[in-house]
């Protein structure tokens, strides 16, 4: 099965058709998506700023991360699910949209940055947990995360203006 038939198969699913045909489904998904993004970005920003060296409501970077990341993850899952449902409603158009594809790339980069942080600076967090400013590796990771997620939001909003709505 090539990509095109796969996209067409997704397009023809009853769930995909349901989202297309129900006038309030798409705006509801979008609203949930924006709410989830706001929580993802809002909570990550607090952690990013702390990693960069901007004080938070507590001194320990490790405790701050442990406190906020559960919210980030739940919101990220909601964003991923609502995003997938929006994609399903019009898979051929999304797959042909540059902004959408680049956005997925940037989400992957943000994930790689997170993995890099957790396998390097975070391993030694006990040594710099309450230090201000944090070590350079943590500061770079925080700054990168901020830039990557900002770009993700930027690309996401541009999808709405560049998507060619094709219904099959």
């Amino acid at each position: 099965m090539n990509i095109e038939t796969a996209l067409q198969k997704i397009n023809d699913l009853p769930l995909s058709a349901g989202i297309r045909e129900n006038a309030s489904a798409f705006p509801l998904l979008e609203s949930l998506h924006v709410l989830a993004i706001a929580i993802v970005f809002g909570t990550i920003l607090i952690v990013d700023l702390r990693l960069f060296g901007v004080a938070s409501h507590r001194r320990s970077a490790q405790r701050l991360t442990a406190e906020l990341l559960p919210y980030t993850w739940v919101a990220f899952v909601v964003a991923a699910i609502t995003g997938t449902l929006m994609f399903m409603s019009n898979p051929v158009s999304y797959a042909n949209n540059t902004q959408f594809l680049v956005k997925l790339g940037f989400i992957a980069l943000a994930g790689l940055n997170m993995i890099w942080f957790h396998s390097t600076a975070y391993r030694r967090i006990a040594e710099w947990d309450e230090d201000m400013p944090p070590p350079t590796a943590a500061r770079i990771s925080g700054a990168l995360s901020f830039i990557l997620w900002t770009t993700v939001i930027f690309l996401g909003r541009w999808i709405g203006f560049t998507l060619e709505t094709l219904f099959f």
Partner: protein
Amino acid sequence: MSITAFGEWLYATPVSTAIRETTWIIPNIQTVHILAIAVVVGSALLTELRLAGVIATDRPEADVLRRYLPWMKVALVVLLLTGTVLIVAEPGRTLGNTLFWIKMALVAGASLVTLKARKSLLRTGDTMAGEVVPEASRSLAWLMVIIWCAVIFCGRFIAYT
């Protein structure tokens, strides 16, 4: 002048036309608007959940509030500015829309509670970590979380009504 007439007048102004015709302005302004929403919602979530006794209960309420209130203020100003540009560009989409006015009322209410009621909390002194929060204050905190969520839904639905 009725609101419809004002909207039509605004739509015809050179500024409004210029914003609409420069295709990159609206998407980018909307992006900044969403980033600012994330800052407001992130800060509000942290402070309200602290006031509700859910998060950072080992930290004094006033400390948490003091950290995030300045961020919220800056983000609210950015929202106001970017929102104004969006209204000037497409007055018909907003000024004649009931959802838009509901959103404005919710934003005004939530901002007022945040800036006035929450600020008085900073003055009346620092409730200590672990101190029991009055029931009414907890309910208000949850209500505020719901209001900010409702603001986002109204904002997105403006485009569809």
